[in-house]
């Protein structure tokens, strides 16, 4: 069930350049299940900025009733968010949307992420590993300074890093790594900028794949039609990223 809750900030720190790891606690966590779902966060009590910000769930800790988000402080809203401290409460709406189907993977899965698309793959990797699925992580970042959670992913499986400027790992995009990796997986999951999703989809037409999309949002719950995409099904078919997604099987969404 979707809840709106003032959640307490448990910890908040900068883990890479402009990348923040924010853990909050509250009963809303008990509603979380699927990796890839997101929450809609109100960053200020004021009307400026007005709209909530969609942020993926990066890690769920049901026992502690807490969950973790990882985000980049970029525009006005996320910069304000980065100022929250441990005494603050955060207005969270969630969990929202449909995430990655963990049961789809059989033996080995590729988790392919770019930039701020990486965070939801972490909870996904945790859940896949818990089910005995081997996970390989192919993660792309701008530069060395922007890399986060490398060790955490390594602890769960093979992890390959690409940076655009070559300052860490392979130079270039995740696709450069994918080209050099074997095709011995059954399922891939991907989250990142749309051109990356397109490239990944293109690279593995034969495989089962699941992609997480981004769109500008209003309501975040399916009521305002801000976040629609057409689909391959028919001329008149469309989905809403916020409530039908953000995760869709490969080949469905026209982006």
């Amino acid at each position, binding site marked *: *069930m*979707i809840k*709106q809750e003032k959640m307490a900030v448990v910890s908040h720190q900068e883990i890479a350049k402009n990348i923040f790891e924010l853990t909050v606690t509250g009963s809303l966590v008990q509603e979380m299940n699927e990796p890839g779902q997101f929450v809609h966060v*109100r960053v200020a009590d004021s*009307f*400026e*900025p*007005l*709209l*909530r910000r969609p942020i993926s769930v990066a890690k769920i800790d049901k026992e502690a009733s807490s969950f973790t988000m990882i985000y980049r402080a970029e525009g006005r*809203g996320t910069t304000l968010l980065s100022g929250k401290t441990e005494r603050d409460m955060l207005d969270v*709406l969630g969990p929202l949307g449909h995430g990655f189907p963990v049961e789809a993977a059989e033996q080995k899965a590729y988790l392919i992420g770019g930039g701020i698309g990486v965070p939801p793959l972490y909870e996904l990797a945790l859940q896949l590993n818990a089910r005995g699925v081997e996970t390989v992580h192919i993660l792309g970042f701008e530069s060395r300074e922007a890399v986060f959670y490398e060790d955490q992913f390594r602890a769960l499986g093979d992890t390959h890093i690409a940076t655009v400027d070559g300052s860490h790992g392979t130079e270039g995009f995740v696709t450069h790594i994918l080209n050099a990796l074997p095709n011995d997986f059954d399922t891939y999951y991907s989250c990142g900028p749309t051109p990356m999703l397109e490239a990944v989809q293109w690279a593995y037409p034969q495989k089962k794949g699941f992609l997480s999309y981004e*769109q*500008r*949002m*209003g*309501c*975040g*719950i*399916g*009521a*305002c*039609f*801000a*976040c*629609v*995409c*057409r689909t391959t099904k028919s001329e*008149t078919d*469309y989905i809403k990223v916020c*409530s039908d997604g953000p995760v869709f099987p490969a080949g469905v969404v026209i982006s």
Partner: protein
Amino acid sequence: MTDLRVQLPGLDLKNPIMPASGCFGFGQEYAQLYDLSKLGSIMVKATTAEMRLGNPTPRVAETSSGMLNAIGLQNPGLEKVVSEQLPWLEQFDVPIIANVAGSIAEDYVEVARAISKAPNVHALEVNISCPNVKQGGITFGTDPDVARELTRMVKEVSDVPVYVKLSPNVTDIVQLAKAVEQGGADGITMINTLLGMRLDPKTGRPVIANITGGLSGPAIKPVALRMVYEVRRHTDLPIIGMGGVTEVDDVIDFLSAGANAVAVGTANFVNPFVCPELIDKLPERLHELGYESVEELIGRSHRL
């Protein structure tokens, strides 16, 4: 006990609070969050004769204390709305206000005729003011003669009272209000969004794919309130006021300016529980202000 009830043509409202059209879909999503029977009414999403896919994305952009949208009247079309969305809403004890839109007058007539027969539709809201559709749309809302005539045509075929939704993008909103009154409107809803634009400073490109969009939210409240106040001075038609309502004192302000009920749009996105919260807070606030009913408060700014 503070009396929240309001009587309007076709609408016996338990309270004067309702979600505004386009900000609440057909209720399904918000029904996951709370009991829709609590609402005074629901203004559902614009319905057109045929299904519409609307504008390309991005369709929304944030602005200071506001947002722009250019959804473009995306909706499943008259047939589906009448056969699926409206029947689904019958489970709730809440009168529906159906928002009617189109590109040409005949579209409006077709939708109005059919949708006004749905058992839970107690009133129509004729959207002559959507800034986000290329054809027709906006000109219906800016030319008094066209607005009068369209109102007359819709009124003729409608089984329920007809409210006309006014655009703020006009030189003289009172003139438009009078025109739709002459056309036989039973009420007015106002305001729709102000036409606006945002650019991406990095590229110089419009953020909204449609280039311009409709501005809503707290930023426009002063304009909305002024227009409600002006229109109230020149007509006795019931007014459902809206534009930037987010807090209980915004409701008080619109009622004071002469609105008979108040709709809440953008604020639903900021706080999805805003409508029931406003309904809960209203009795206490009225009491604090020395009023025992909503009806008493309506239009008080004109009686000072």
